[in-house]
């Protein structure tokens, strides 16, 4: 056997011969059972299985009139769409009562095996309001660094292990802004890489972690996309303690990446922004 396999729900009747499968928003698993009596399969029906315990329950029983239900998918409101080969149709099933409603039947359909639902195109990610800074000697009024911070490089691509690199950045985003603003400078002298931001596109703050992307001039070459990931783990201005912040930067063309712990300086997420003015309710920077 190749790969790792774990049985989720193993059972005799009435769960026999599942064909279609889907996962509901809450994580429970739905299956359709395609009747095939000559092979000992259970009467056709729709079942639900607890993904943790494997416990099975009937969503829509055979007695309701299923013939050969096969492929399925779920709609945003939880309704279940099922293709029934035997009935030559597509049904919408109430996930609570199990009662099916025919959506379309016959016509071109001879043995429909699967269904899919067209969803709205995914929305582009939206920046998180807040302020993230990195460097050293932070201005107590603006929260911005006045000197470079340094990382000890312990991973990356086209870097020298155990070397160091300097960084300094400010990125802020407020509701209503078209895009984040600020600046970033990064210098890895050993690898001869200098990155100077020209614009920011996105800032995402998740508690003590922040990531941001933008375009930069890299060694004089304009329009290179970069991504920075930082962890604000240490108390502010306490980077020499046991717990240290993390900083990583990569060029999205894959040509360079450096990551490591902050040796000198600090990463600060949110707090300066909130010290200077009240954090709007719901902001990631509002503790």
């Amino acid at each position: 056997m190749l790969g790792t396999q774990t049985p989720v729900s193993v059972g005799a009747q009435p769960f026999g011969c599942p064909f279609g499968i889907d996962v509901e928003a809450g994580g429970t698993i739905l299956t359709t059972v395609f009747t095939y009596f000559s092979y000992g399969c259970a009467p056709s029906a729709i079942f639900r299985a607890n993904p943790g315990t494997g416990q099975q329950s009937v969503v829509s029983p055979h007695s309701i009139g299923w013939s050969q239900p096969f492929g399925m998918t779920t709609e945003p409101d939880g309704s279940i769409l099922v293709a029934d080969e035997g009935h030559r149709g597509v049904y919408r099933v109430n996930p609570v009562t199990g009662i099916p409603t025919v959506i379309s039947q016959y016509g071109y359909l001879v043995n429909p095996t699967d269904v899919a639902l067209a969803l709205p195109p995914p929305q582009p990610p939206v920046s998180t309001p807040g302020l993230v800074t990195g460097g050293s000697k932070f201005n107590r009024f603006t929260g911005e660094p006045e000197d470079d911070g340094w990382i000890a490089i312990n991973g990356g691509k086209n870097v020298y292990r155990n070397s160091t690199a300097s960084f300094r950045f400010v990125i802020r985003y407020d509701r209503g802004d078209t895009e984040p603003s600020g600046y970033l400078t990064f210098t890895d002298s050993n690898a001869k890489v200098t990155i100077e931001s020209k614009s920011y596109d996105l800032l995402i703050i998740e508690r003590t972690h922040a990531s941001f992307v933008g375009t930069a001039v890299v060694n004089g070459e304009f329009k290179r996309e970069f991504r920075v990931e930082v962890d604000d783990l240490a108390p502010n201005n306490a980077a020499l303690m046991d717990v240290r912040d993390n900083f990583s930067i990569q060029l999205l063309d894959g040509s360079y990446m450096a990551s490591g712990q902050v040796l000198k300086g600090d990463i600060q997420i949110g707090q300066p922004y909130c010290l200077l003015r009240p954090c709007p309710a719901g902001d990631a920077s509002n503790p």
Partner: protein
Amino acid sequence: MNTHIGTSLSRILGNATRAAAAVWSVLAPVLLILLFASSPVSAVTINPGDILVVDPNALGGNGGIFKIDPATGAQTIVSSGGFFQEPVGIVIEASGNIVVTDRTGFVIRVDPATGIQNVLSAGGYFADPFGLALEAGGNLLVVDAAYGGSGAVIRVNPTTGQQTLLTSGGFLDNPYGIAVEANGNIVVADNSTAVRPSPVRAASSVSIRCLEPRPRFL
């Protein structure tokens, strides 16, 4: 004399061959166009909420994809003919393109705006590609009901079509359905013989969770 006749014959045959090749070079593209023109592919607009159905036996037996209006139930052909021989599984990518599995060994991408089909992946591990699912990153997962005699789960790169065999054997015995849990785990509906062996670690780090071993089908 005989040499002369032989030379003439070969010259005639050579000219005939060249003429036939020239005619074929003109006719072949026309025939191909006619072949695909005879396929009832069509252009439809897919709106959020529309339901797409794949049917392997529709339209004379080679199957097709149909749009179903969720309000009226009206059916519209999205794509048929072309590479379709027995399409069975269907997903819609984030881009809006449709991907189907065809049991004859293909994964086919369909542009709904034109109905045009392109083979994304073929051959390789495919023996009876059936169920189809999408991973969060856009990779396609195919559950194959017959690879190695018992079935497999195969990941397909959506750009290159490259196949990666994630799991085979074990609990699998003619799986037809596949889905992905929120944490990225893959769940498979399978009707194999009931056993409950302990999980086995292998090269793939993907956890395959099999549903319901039961008597073999087909």
